[in-house]
C-alpha cells in the first residue's frame, strides 16, 4: 500500500489536511497508508509527502527544524523522486527565503522569495482572504483541471519564484501572484485545498495519482 506522510510539526491545518487526504483517497477508491508523522524513517521512505502550514513563515520553519531529522528526511524523499505537496505556508517554505519579520531561510527547493502582498489598488484588503479563481500558467498535470475554479485563500504573503516557469497557476488580488508552483516532483499551492470543498478534494486526489 502506498504510504503518505503528512508532516506533523504542529501546524494548525494538519487535522483538516489529514481529513482531506482520507476523503480524496476514499473518493479514488484507493487504500492508502496516511499518517501524520514526524518519524524521519517513515518520511524518508514515504511514497508521497504533504507539508501543511499556517501562520508565520519563520515560526513554521522553526517548528519544522525543531523536529529532529524531519527536514533531512523530507529532503531524502524528494531526492528519491517522491511527489511532494506544500500547502499555504507549507508551499511558501519551499522558497529560498521568507521576508516576514526579517529574513528566514526556507527549504530552497524552488528558488524564490516570500514577501508581503501589496495590492496595486489600496482599497483591496490584506490578508487575501476568501475564494478566488486561479489561472493556469505553465501547464502542469496537477493543476490542469483546477484552472478557472475557486479555491479558498487566506494569506498576507506570497511566493515569487526566481524562474517564472515554476509558477503553474496564478491568482489576482491587485496584481497577480503565484497560486501554485511546481518543479520536478515538488509542488505547492498557496490556497487551502483542504478547505476548498470539491475543488480542493479533486486537487488532492490528483496529487495522490500524480506521477512526476
Amino acid at each position: 500500500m502506498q504510504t503518505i506522510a503528512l508532516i506533523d510539526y504542529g501546524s494548525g491545518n494538519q487535522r483538516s489536511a489529514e481529513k482531506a487526504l482520507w476523503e480524496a483517497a476514499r473518493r479514488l477508491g484507493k487504500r492508502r497508508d496516511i499518517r501524520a508523522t514526524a518519524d524521519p524513517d517513515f518520511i524518508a521512505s514515504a511514497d508521497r509527502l504533504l507539508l501543511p502550514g499556517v501562520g508565520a513563515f519563520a515560526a513554521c520553519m522553526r517548528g519544522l527544524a525543531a523536529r529532529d531529522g524531519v527536514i533531512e528526511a523530507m529532503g531524502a524523499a524528494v531526492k528519491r523522486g517522491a511527489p511532494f505537496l506544500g500547502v499555504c505556508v507549507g508551499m511558501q517554505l519551499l522558497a529560498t527565503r521568507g521576508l516576514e519579520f526579517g529574513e528566514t531561510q526556507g527549504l530552497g527547493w524552488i528558488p524564490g522569495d516570500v514577501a508581503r502582498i501589496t495590492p496595486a489598488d489600496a482599497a483591496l484588503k490584506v490578508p487575501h482572504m476568501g475564494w478566488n479563481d486561479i489561472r493556469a500558467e505553465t501547464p502542469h498535470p496537477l493543476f490542469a483541471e483546477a484552472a478557472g475554479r475557486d479555491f479558498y485563500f487566506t494569506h498576507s504573503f506570497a511566493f515569487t519564484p526566481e524562474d517564472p516557469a515554476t509558477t503553474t497557476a496564478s491568482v489576482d488580488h491587485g496584481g497577480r501572484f503565484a497560486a501554485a508552483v511546481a518543479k520536478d516532483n515538488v509542488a505547492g499551492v498557496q490556497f487551502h485545498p483542504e478547505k476548498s470543498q470539491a475543488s480542493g478534494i479533486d486537487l488532492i486526489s490528483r496529487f495522490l495519482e500524480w506521477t512526476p
Partner: protein
Amino acid sequence: MTLKVRVIPCLDVKDGRVVKGVQFLALRDAGDPVEQAQAYDAAGADELMFLDITASHEGRRPIHEVIARTAEVCFMPLSVGGGVRTVADARALLLSGADKVSINTAAVENPDLLAACADAFGSQAVVAAVDAKQVESGRWNIFTYGGRKDTGIDAVEYARLAVEKGAGEILLTSMDRDGAKNGYDTVLLKAVSGAVTVPVIASGGAGSTDHMVDAVKSGGADAVLAASIFHFGEIGIGEAKQALAAAHLPVRLT
C-alpha cells in the same frame, strides 16, 4: 478574476446543540450542528460561523466536539466565536478544527490578547468581533457581554486598534439592526471598512438579498453573515449569491 464576496451562515450553538437552527430542511436531528453544517456546505456556503453561547466556559466544552465532527465532514473554512478569553481557549478551538477564532469581549478589555493570538497562530486565524451600537449620528460604541454593557469605546477606533494588534478580519455586528431584518447598518460598515486594511464581515440586520447587495456596495463589506433568514429558509445561500451576482458583484457559484 477576483476575490469573491463571501456568504456566511452563522449557527448559534448552546451546550453542543443548535439554537434556532435550520428549520426548512427535514433534518434527522435539527439540533445537531454537524447536520446543519453539512446542509450549508452542500448549499454552497463559502464559510461557516459557529457562535457558542454556552454559559459556562470551564474546561473542555461541547463546542470542541462540534467543531471536530464538523471538520471531519465539511471541507470548508470554519470560524468559531463565543467565550474566547485566553490564548489557550483559542488554541483549543483551532486544534479542534476551527480555522479562525473570533474574539469579542476579552479583546475589547485587553486588545493585547489579539496580538498574543496573532503571534501564536497568525493573523489569518484571528477575527476581532465588534458589537457596535449607534450612540449619536456617526458614532458607534462597542457593547460587550452580548450587547449589555456600553464600554464607551468608539467602534471605528477599536477596529483600527484591533487590526494594529494583529486581527486578520473584523466581524462587525450592528446591535441596532441585529434581528430587525431591516438591513445591515451600511453607514457603520462604510466607516469601519474604510478605516481598516483587513476584510470586514457584515452582520446584523439581513432581511433580504437586497440588504446583502447594499452591505457590499454601500458598506464596502467583504462578506455577509446572516443567521435566521438562512435558517428559516427565507433566503437560500444560492439565492443570495445569485442576487449578488445580478448586482455585478463577484461570487462563487457552485
